[in-house]
């Protein structure tokens, strides 16, 4: 099978089960959104794939070859998260130089072009950059590295609106010209909802949803109206959440709406963020 395959991955930290029997596949040339609440296990999952954390059980393979502790396979992956693993005192341009040593496909010219766009001076030391600019630096490396599987853990953490917008545009442009697999883990669901093709939702260390974004959005709808009317409509249906405001009620329902909706009810689509919130609130 072409791509990354995770089989039965579990990880426990002291008394907390961070991941539990996770089975996932990441195909090539696809953009994935990895969504989950704080502490759901997203970062642990990404760290395990990229050999930073060791799973208690299970395997991670790329096209059948084990990825764990295998430099040859790991050179097809690249992960950025909020940890700065570059040495104290290393400058941005040195980091680019060494990235191109470790990853021969690294495009230095493209990285410098991005530095100009984001106004990042490449003579600065990485540790001296502000939080936002450290994130920008890591994103630039990830976008220039040219490996088939890039993992971005919170790539817009600390970025202002202009930089976030710029980042998404650059990401899409890069992907459109040379497709590769991108796995984005983020809390800003609305912003990436149109960029991702597949959605993976983690809750308490388990995968509760793994589907294409279009299927997920088709899979549900919202019904709003007077509480009594809504209650009448939703009986017998799979409701994943409700909101009440005075006498008005909104219900989030899985499935296809009936062809005839009563006049006193209004129906609307469920966007990804609403779907995520309703699915993951406990």
């Amino acid at each position: 099978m072409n791509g990354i395959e995770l089989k039965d991955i579990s990880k426990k930290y002291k008394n907390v089960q961070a991941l539990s029997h996770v089975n996932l596949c990441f195909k090539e040339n696809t953009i994935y959104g990895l969504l989950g609440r704080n502490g759901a296990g997203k970062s642990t999952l990404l760290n395990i794939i990229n050999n930073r954390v060791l799973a208690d059980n299970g395997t991670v393979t790329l096209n059948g070859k084990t990825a764990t502790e295998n430099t040859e396979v790991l050179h097809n992956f690249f992960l950025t998260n909020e940890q700065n693993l570059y040495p104290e005192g290393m400058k941005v341009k040195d980091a680019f130089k060494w990235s191109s040593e470790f990853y021969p496909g690294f495009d230095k010219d493209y990285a410098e072009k991005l530095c100009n766009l984001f106004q990042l001076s490449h003579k600065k030391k990485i540790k001296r950059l502000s939080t936002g600019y450290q994130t920008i630096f890591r994103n630039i490396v990830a976008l220039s590295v040219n490996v088939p599987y890039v993992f971005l853990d919170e790539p817009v953490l600390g970025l202002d609106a202009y930089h976030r917008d710029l980042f998404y545009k650059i990401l899409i442009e890069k992907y459109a010209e040379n497709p590769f697999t991108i796995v984005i883990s983020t809390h800003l669901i609305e912003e990436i909802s149109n960029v991702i093709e597949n959605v993976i939702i983690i809750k308490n260390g388990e995968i509760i949803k793994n589907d294409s974004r279009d299927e997920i959005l088709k899979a549900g709808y919202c019904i709003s109206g007077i509480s009594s009317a809504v209650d009448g409509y939703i009986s017998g249906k799979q409701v994943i959440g409700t909101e009440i405001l005075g006498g008005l009620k909104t219900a989030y329902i899985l499935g296809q709406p009936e062809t005839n909706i009563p006049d006193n009810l209004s129906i609307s689509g469920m966007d990804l963020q609403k779907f995520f919130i309703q699915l993951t609130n406990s």
Partner: protein
Amino acid sequence: MNLELDQEKPIFIQISECIEDGILTGGFPEGTQIPSITEFSVNYKINPATALKGINLLVDEGIIFKKRGVGMFVSEGAVNKLREKRQNQFYDNYIGTLIEEAKRLGISSDEIIAMIERGFIQ
């Protein structure tokens, strides 16, 4: 061209409708090249596959044609084709909703006709 996308309709349909609007208003004249998939996806901040899907809808309807190695162009006669298509859809898209809302508010059909005539004068 309105760059706002909502979650009510599938994105690729909204993309193709935006291109149709552009063709109808003269923004994309017949025979000229339209922006590439990359440009559409970057501008709307959407997945290129979605942009491609939207454009392929128009290719299937004969509104757009692809020239290999060059790009995508508006077909001759696209404007007329689109006008016909939109006229056919006009009742479902607008009249139907109008009548539903009118019924909800208790507006009679005579009152609606008067409103429409007033609208055309203004």
